[in-house]
C-alpha cells in the first residue's frame, strides 16, 4: 500500500500548492520531506531483503502493479533527498527567474512521476510514469520561454516521446516473447520467442538510453539541461537521467544479472560496455571545449552516465563475477546525483548573482561567493574522483570491475580500461578549468547582484556534507545499500566481492592523484594553447550529420511531393478536358443534329430519319453479310 501512496504524496502537494494563497510555506520541501520520511519508514522491510508488492485492484487486462526492492528503495530515497534539497534552494533562486509556482508545480508532478517509475512493478506502470515524467519535466526546459529554451524544449520532448514510443514497442515485443508480461523484480525472463526477446531488449535499451543520454541518443541533453533554471537542471541532470539508468538496470534484470548471458542477448554486456565507453568519451571531449558552464556540466552528465553504463555492461559481461560493476554503477548513480546537483546549484548561484554563465566572462568570484566557492570545490573534487570524496569510491569500484574484465578479456576491454583512465583525466581537466575560470583567475568585470542566498547555500551545504560523509566512509553505502541491491538483482556473490575489496588501497589512491595531477597539467596546457576554444566542424558532429540527413530527406520528400502533385494535376486536367469534350460532343449531338451525306445536307428530321434508317441498314447488313 505504501508503494501506491508514495507517488500520490506529491500530487496532494500539488493540490495544496494550487490552493495556496500568498502565505510563504515551502510546500515542495514539506512534500519531499514527507516522501523521504515515508520512504525511510515504509521501505525498511525492503532493506531486510523482503521486496514489497502491491497491485491496484482494477479490472481488465492490465492492473497497475507496484514493486519495491532495494534498488527501487535506493532510488526513491535519493529522489526524496535530492528533491528536498532542491526545494530548499528553489524559492530564493526562482524569485529571480519568475513563475515560481509553475516551476514548483512541475517539480512536484515530476517527483510523483519519478517515484512512480522507481516503484513500478510492471512495464506498463513504468511507461505510464515515464511519460508523465517527460511531460511534466518538459516545462522546466521551456521555463524561460526564450527562443533557445523552446528549441531545447522541442529537442527534449521529441527525444523523450520517441523514447517512450520505443519503450512501448519494446513492451510489445516483450509481450510477444513471453506469455505473461514480466514483473519487474522477478528476475531473468525465460523467453518463448528468443528473437522477439532480443528485439525487445534492444528497443528497451534505446528507449531508456534516450532518457539516460546515451551516445548517440544524447543530442537533446546538453540543450535541455543547460537552458532549464538551475534547480531544474540539477534535477534533470541529477535524477531524471538516472531514470534511464534505472531502466537499463531493469533491462539487465530481464536479461539476467549474475549469469552468463545466453542466446539472443549474449551481446548485451559487451554492447553496453562499448556504448558506455563511447558515451563517456564523447561527453568528456565535448565538455572540454565548452565555454558555457551549464553546457559543460551537461556534457559531463553524459560522460558520467557513460561510466554508469560501462559499469552495467561490465557487470553483465562478467556474469556472476560482475558484482563490482553493478555495485559501482549504482554507487556512481547516487554519487553523481549528489555532485551534479551541487554543481548545477552552484552555477545557478553564480548565474543569479551575475546573470552570466559564460566561463570566460567570469573570474575571481571566490571573494564574492566564498561559501559557494567552498561547496563547489567539494563538488568538483567529488566529480573528479579525488580520494576522500564520494566520486572516488564509485570510480574505484568501477575501475576495479573494468580492470578485472580487462585482465583476461579481449582487446576492446583493455582499450576501454585505458579510455576509462583517459576520461578521468579529461574530467579533471575540464573541472579544473571550470573552477579556475569562475572562482579563481582574474576578477571579472561583471556586475554582481546582492541576493538572499542563505537557502541556496544551505542546500549546497547539505549536499556537500553528504558527499564528505560518503567520501570518508565509502564502504557504508556500498555495503548497506548497493550490495544488497545487487544481490537482490541476482549478483549472488556481490557482497563477498565487496568485502574483499579495500577502498583505501594505495595504488588506487595514487592513480587517482596522478590522474588529477595530469588533469591539472592538461588544463594548464589547454589554457596556453587555446585548445579549449577549438570546435569540431559542424558536419562532423552528430547534430550536423542529423541535420544533413534531415535536409536530404526533406529534399527527396519535396521532390516526391512535387512529382506526385504534377501527376495528380495532369490527371485532373486530362480528365477535365475529357469531360469538357464529352459534354461538348453530347451537347452538339443534342442541339443540332445535322450532317452531310455526299452533297445532301441533312437537317433536323432528315438527320433523325437518316439515323433511323442507318441503324436499320446496319442491323440488316450486319446479319446478312457479316455474320453469315
Amino acid at each position, binding site marked *: 500500500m505504501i508503494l501506491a501512496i508514495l507517488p500520490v504524496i506529491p500530487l496532494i502537494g500539488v493540490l495544496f500548492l494550487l490552493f495556496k494563497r500568498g502565505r510563504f510555506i515551502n510546500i515542495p520541501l514539506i512534500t519531499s520531506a514527507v516522501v523521504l520520511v515515508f520512504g525511510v519508514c515504509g521501505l525498511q522491510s525492503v532493506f531486510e531483503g523482503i521486496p514489497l508488492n502491491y497491485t491496484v485492484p482494477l479490472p481488465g487486462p492490465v492492473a497497475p502493479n507496484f514493486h519495491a526492492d532495494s534498488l527501487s528503495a535506493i532510488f526513491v530515497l535519493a529522489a526524496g533527498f535530492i528533491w528536498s534539497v532542491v526545494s530548499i534552494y528553489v524559492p530564493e533562486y526562482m524569485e529571480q527567474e519568475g513563475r515560481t509556482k509553475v516551476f514548483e508545480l512541475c517539480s512536484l508532478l515530476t517527483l510523483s512521476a519519478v517515484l512512480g517509475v522507481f516503484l513500478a512493478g510492471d512495464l506498463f506502470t513504468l511507461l505510464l510514469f515515464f*511519460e508523465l515524467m517527460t511531460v511534466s519535466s518538459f516545462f522546466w526546459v521551456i521555463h524561460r*520561454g526564450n527562443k533557445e529554451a523552446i528549441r531545447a524544449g522541442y529537442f527534449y520532448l521529441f527525444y523523450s516521446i*520517441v523514447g517512450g*514510443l520505443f519503450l*512501448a514497442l519494446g513492451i510489445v515485443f516483450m*509481450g510477444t516473447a513471453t506469455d505473461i508480461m514480466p514483473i519487474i523484480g522477478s528476475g531473468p525472463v525465460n523467453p518463448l520467442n528468443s528473437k*522477439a526477446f532480443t528485439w525487445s531488449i534492444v528497443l528497451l535499451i534505446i528507449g531508456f538510453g534516450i532518457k539516460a543520454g546515451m551516445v548517440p541518443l544524447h543530442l537533446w541533453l546538453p540543450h535541455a539541461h543547460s537552458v532549464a533554471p538551475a534547480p531544474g537542471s540539477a534535477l534533470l541532470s541529477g535524477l531524471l537521467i538516472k531514470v534511464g539508468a534505472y531502466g537499463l538496470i531493469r533491462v539487465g534484470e530481464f536479461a539476467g544479472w549474475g549469469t552468463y548471458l545466453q542466446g539472443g542477448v549474449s551481446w548485451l554486456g559487451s554492447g553496453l560496455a562499448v556504448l558506455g565507453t563511447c558515451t563517456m568519451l564523447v561527453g568528456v571531449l565535448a565538455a572540454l571545449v565548452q565555454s558555457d558552464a551549464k553546457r559543460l556540466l551537461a556534457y559531463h552528465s553524459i560522460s558520467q552516465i557513460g561510466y554508469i553504463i560501462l559499469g552495467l555492461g561490465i557487470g553483465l559481461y562478467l556474469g556472476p563475477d560482475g558484482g563490482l560493476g553493478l555495485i559501482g554503477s549504482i554507487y556512481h548513480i547516487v554519487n553523481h546525483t549528489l555532485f551534479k546537483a551541487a554543481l548545477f546549484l552552484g552555477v545557478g548561484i553564480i548565474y543569479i548573482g551575475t546573470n552570466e554563465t559564460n566561463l570566460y566572462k567570469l573570474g575571481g568570484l571566490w571573494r564574492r561567493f566564498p561559501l559557494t566557492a567552498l561547496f563547489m570545490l567539494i563538488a568538483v573534487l567529488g566529480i573528479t574522483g579525488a580520494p576522500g570524496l564520494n566520486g572516488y569510491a564509485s570510480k574505484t569500484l568501477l575501475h576495479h570491475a573494468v580492470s578485472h574484465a580487462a585482465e583476461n578479456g579481449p582487446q576492446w576491454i583493455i582499450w576501454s580500461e585505458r579510455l576509462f583512465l583517459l576520461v578521468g583525466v579529461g574530467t579533471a581537466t575540464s573541472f579544473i578549468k571550470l573552477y579556475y575560470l569562475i572562482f579563481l583567475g582574474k576578477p571579472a568585470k561583471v556586475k554582481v547582484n546582492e541576493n538572499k542566498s542563505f537557502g541556496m547555500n544551505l542546500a549546497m551545504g547539505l549536499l556537500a556534507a553528504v558527499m564528505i560523509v560518503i567520501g570518508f566512509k565509502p564502504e557504508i553505502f556500498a555495503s548497506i545499500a548497493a550490495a544488497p541491491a545487487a544481490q537482490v538483482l541476482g549478483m549472488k556473490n556481490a557482497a563477498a566481492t565487496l568485502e574483499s575489496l579495500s577502498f583505501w588501497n594505495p595504488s588506487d589512491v595514487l592513480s587517482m592523484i596522478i590522474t588529477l595531477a595530469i588533469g591539472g597539467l592538461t588544463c594548464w596546457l589547454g589554457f596556453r594553447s587555446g585548445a579549449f576554444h577549438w570546435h569540431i566542424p559542424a558536419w562532423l558532429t552528430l547534430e550536423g550529420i542529423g541535420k544533413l540527413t534531415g535536409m536530404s530527406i526533406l529534399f527527396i520528400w519535396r521532390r516526391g511531393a512535387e512529382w506526385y502533385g504534377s501527376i495528380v494535376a495532369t490527371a485532373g486536367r486530362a480528365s477535365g478536358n475529357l469531360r469538357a469534350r464529352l459534354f461538348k460532343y453530347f451537347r452538339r449531338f443534342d442541339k443540332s443534329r445535322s450532317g452531310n451525306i455526299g452533297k445532301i445536307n441533312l437537317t433536323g428530321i432528315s438527320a433523325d430519319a437518316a439515323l433511323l434508317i442507318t441503324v436499320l441498314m446496319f442491323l440488316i447488313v450486319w446479319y446478312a453479310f457479316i455474320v453469315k
Partner: protein
Amino acid sequence: MLSLVIALFSGAVGGLVVAMIPETKNRLRNYIVLLFAASSAFFTWHTALKVFAGERVRVAGELGGLAFSIDPDPLGAVFGLIASTLWLFTAVYSFGYMAGKHKQRTFFTFFLMSLTMTLGVAFSGNLVALYLFYELLTFATYPLVIHERSAEAMKAGTKYILYSLSGAGAILIAIIFTYAWSGKLDFSSGPMLANSLGPGLNWLLMLFIGGFGVKAAIMPLHRWLPAAMAAPTPVSALLHAVAVVYSGVYGILRTVYSVFGHELIGQLEIRYILPWTAAITIVAGIVIAARQDVLKRRLAYQTVSHLSYILLGAFTLNAWGLAGAIFHMISYSTLKITLFFCAGIISEQTGVIKVSKIGGIGRLLPKTMAAFSIATMGMIGMLPLNTFWGKYYLMKGSVEAGKWPLAVVLIISGILNAICFVPAIVNAFNRVSTKTCEEKGSRVSLMLAPTLALVMIALFIGLMPGIIWPGVEAVVNWFY
C-alpha cells in the same frame, strides 16, 4: 427489442420534431435535441449492455423483397456506443458553437437524422441494412457539409457526394457478388463466404475495401475528407472524424470478419497487400498533415492517418490486432473530437484558423489549449491517454502476425504526429498573442464543458483500460 428501436429511431424522430420548431426558438430546440440525443444514447447503452451479455436483440423484416435485419453484435454495439455517446457531447458543444449562427434548424435536423443513420450502420444485421444506412448516411450528412453555403462548401459537398456514391456503388456490386456466391447476407451466421475459394475473391475483397475505403479515407480515396472540413466544426468533429468515417471503417471490419472471415482472407494473396495499404496511408496521411497550415485540414489529414490504424488492426488478421482496432476506435474518437472541439473554440474565440498563427493562444485560452495538448499526446500514443492501449494492441497484433515492420510504422507515425503538433503547442503556450479574448461566458462554457469532459474520459480510460475491456473482449470473442 424496444430499446433497440428507440435507440435507433430517436434521431430520426427527433430530427422531424426539430424540423417543425420555428427557426427562432433556439432554446426549445436545444432542449429537444438534447432529449433525443440522450434517449438515443441511453437506449444504445441499454441495448449494448445486453448484447455484451450475450443476449440477442433483433428486429428483422423485409424490405424491397430483401431480408433486412437490425441485429447488433458486439462490434456493432461498440460502434453504436461510440457514436451515440459522442453525439451527446457534440450536441452540447453545438449548442455553444451554433449559437447565433444561421440555419440552426436545418443543422440540428440533419444532425439528429445522421445519428439514426450512423446507428443504423452500426446495428445492421445484414449487408442490405448496412448498405441502406450507409447510403442514407451520405445524404443525411450532406446538408451538414454544405452548411456554410459558401462556394467552397458547396464544392466540398459535391465532392463528398460523388466520392460516397461511387463507393456505395462499388459496395453494391460487391454485395451482389457476395450474395450470388454465398447466398447469404446475414452477419449473424458466421462469415458468409467462409466455404468458397476462388480467384475472384481477391477482387471481391478489393471491391469491398475500395467501396468502404472511400468513407474510411484510405489513400488515395481520401480527398473528400479534407475538403469536407468546410463544414461547421461540430460536424467536422463528430462526422468527419468519427461517425461517417467510422462507418467506412466499420464496413471494412465487417467485410473482413463477417463477410470473408479472417481465416479465408488468411488464404488469399491479397493479405500481403492489405496491411501495407493501411501502413502507407498511416504514414503519408500524417506527413501530408504536417504540411497543412489550416488547423482543421491538418486534423483532417491526421484523421486519414489514424483511421488506417484501425484498418491495420483489422488487416493483421489476429485477435490482438482486432482488439487494438476496437480499442483504437474507442479511444481515438474521444480524443479526435476533443481536438476538433478545441480547434472550433479557437477559431470561434480568436478567429485563428491557421497553425502558423496559433502563437500565444495558450495564454489566452489555457483550458482549451491544455485539452488540445493532452489530446495531441494521445494522438502520439503516450501513456496516460487511452490511445496508447489501442496502439499497444495494434503493435502487438502486428508483431504476433510476424509483421513487425508494421509496428515500426506505428511508431514512426507517432513520431510524425509529434512533429506535426508539438511545435504548434509549444508556440501556443510560449508566444504572446496580440489578440485579446477570454475563456468566459455561457457560450464558451457550453463548448468547453464537453471538451474537458472528453479529455477526462480519455484520461480515465487511459489509466483504467479495464473499464472498456469487456466490450473489446466481447468483440474479439465474437469473431475468434
